[in-house]
């Protein structure tokens, strides 16, 4: 009987001690865990901020990509439409020039073109080329330029003259086509402005 009670007492003591140890361990673990959590909170917050900031960066990047490429696409379409319209205006204008009447003003223009050409070449000893439509006008204007001859060959152009020195070394293209080509960038700008496109 006595031995049983002392055994029970011993067991109780062990249990009590074990319980105390377990409770103490649990307390310690809780404290460590809380400490751990407290310590990792700023780190977590930092990581959270980092993830949010990276996400924002990525979103900004994608937004830039999308807006950039759609803006460009829209602008390019507009450029093509403007160019197409400019082309139409040009074609129409060239048609009108080709069909224009060769009146008195036109013979004055031919004279000034011949004057300009011979001045630039530095001689009137030249051969003049023109289209079949302007041959008569050019022939009559040539009387004022001694040594200048009208070529029997005709050239394809809207109007005006192409002048070549008799030795063949120098040529000056003063046809309307060449003049329009040289001024084309400025004319394009003027037409575009009429369409409301400005830089």
């Amino acid at each position, binding site marked *: 009987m006595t031995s049983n009670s002392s055994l029970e007492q011993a067991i109780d003591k062990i249990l009590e001690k074990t319980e105390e140890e377990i409770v103490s361990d649990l307390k310690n673990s809780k404290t460590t865990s809380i400490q751990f959590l407290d310590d990792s909170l700023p780190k977590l917050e930092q990581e959270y901020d980092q993830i949010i900031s990276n996400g924002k*960066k990525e979103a900004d*990047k994608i937004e*830039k*990509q*999308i*807006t*950039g*490429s759609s*803006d*460009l696409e829209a*602008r*390019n379409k507009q*450029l*093509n439409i*403007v*160019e197409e319209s400019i082309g139409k205006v040009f074609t129409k204008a060239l048609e009108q020039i080709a069909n224009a009447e060769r009146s008195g003003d036109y013979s004055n223009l031919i004279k000034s073109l011949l004057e*300009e050409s011979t001045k*630039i*070449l*530095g001689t009137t000893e030249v051969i003049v080329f023109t289209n079949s439509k302007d041959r008569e006008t050019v022939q009559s204007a040539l009387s004022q330029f001694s040594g200048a001859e009208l070529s029997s060959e005709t050239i394809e152009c809207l109007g005006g003259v192409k002048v070549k020195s008799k030795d*063949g*070394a*120098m*040529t*000056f*293209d*003063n046809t309307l086509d*060449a*003049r329009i080509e*040289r*001024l084309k*960038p*400025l004319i*394009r*700008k003027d037409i*575009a402005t009429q369409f409301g*496109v400005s*830089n």
Partner: protein
Amino acid sequence: MSAEGGVQYSKIAEIKGPLVIVDDVSNAAFDELVEIETNEGERRLGKVLEVGNGKAIVQVFEGTTGLSISGTKAKFVGKVMEMPVSKEVLGRVFDGLGRPKDGLPDPIADKFIDINGEPMNPEQREYPKDFIQTGVSVIDGMITLVRGQKLPIFSGSGMSHNLVAAQIARQASVIGTQDDFAVVFAAIGVQYSEAEYFRRSLEESGALKRSVLFLNTADDPAIERIITPRVALTVAEYLAFELGMHVLVILTDMTNYAEALREISAAREEVPGRKGYPGYLYTDLSTIYERAGKLNGRKGSVTQVPILSMPSDDITHPIPDLTGYITEGQVVLGRDLFRQGVYPPVNILMSLSRLMKDGIGEGSTRADHGEISNQVYDAYSRAQEVRALAGIVGKAGLTEIDLKYMDVGDVFEKEFLTQATDENRTIEETLTILWKIVSKLPKNEITKIKDKFIDQYYQGK
């Protein structure tokens, strides 16, 4: 621009390399634009290099292949080469001569500007002092680029300079201002794949909208390369000084430009200078580099980042050597770092931005920027010495502080220098990493930073 055209001459005396010599020429002018017409009616552009005794020497940009003395005609246009400019050039891709390469029409010009530009009046120049953020830590943190500066990148063959160039073009921005920012990118003699990479990279990142690209590929005639940087700078100057934008001009690869210059010089039988380059290489390069800057009373700026690959990694080669005399510092890419797989492989000990001190600090980046940068420079330099020592005595023979410096070197290369090609770091992020590096050292080793900054940013124990 006038309707008057030029005279066409048909007496070609000689064709020599990229040059055509025209006989019986009167009234031609130096630098005048020339249209060369071949037998087949093909037209090429050129410019007058020399006139006298009834002869004109014409440099043909598109090369003389296929030209013959008989039947070739040269038309002297009566004006110098001009670039049509307007705001519309933004987002466009041009070839090396400034002609559209993107399948779109010619831009409707606001102005036509002589591509040779005019040197900036030194008295009108404003000292550059505003920060440009490239998003590349090593540049922003330690070799800072400022608006109006010319800061070349010295690289070597096969190294990652093109990746760096494209990354800067995509990411560069001005902070703390609402002013417009634009990038003019001139690729000179690059491979087709590289040119495509630049175009795609800007297009996909959405940066093409604020960029202008000039692409002269390796298979384009070498002579075109003389013109490419000039048309690019003409556009940049227009955007900067007429439209008030801050423009970053990236020119890659200037070595190809110098090679083209050498080719013309050899064809003209000029007395060669070092390594066969013409004696006027310095003067010629300065006509390009000196087009960077800011002007008093004007809002915009032109900043230049020319990139050149040093033949045999030789920094004493005439091209980097003469470039270094003109520019305001240099960013040097290191072969060792490149071999280790570090990107961008910038050797900071050989790199320097002379204008950095004026573009950083309170009001532009952060008050501690200059000091933290100096401290890291010093620490990395010491780390290199310690590494060399470790190579002889082994790690076991190093002191505790030596090991800390070795650690600094490793962290510097792995966390600060190394960056993804699409990683855009803010200056704040860059400075945070610099402090992380310095925090590896004990406080008593930090001698270049004021205590108040150490108290604020030091993360060590």
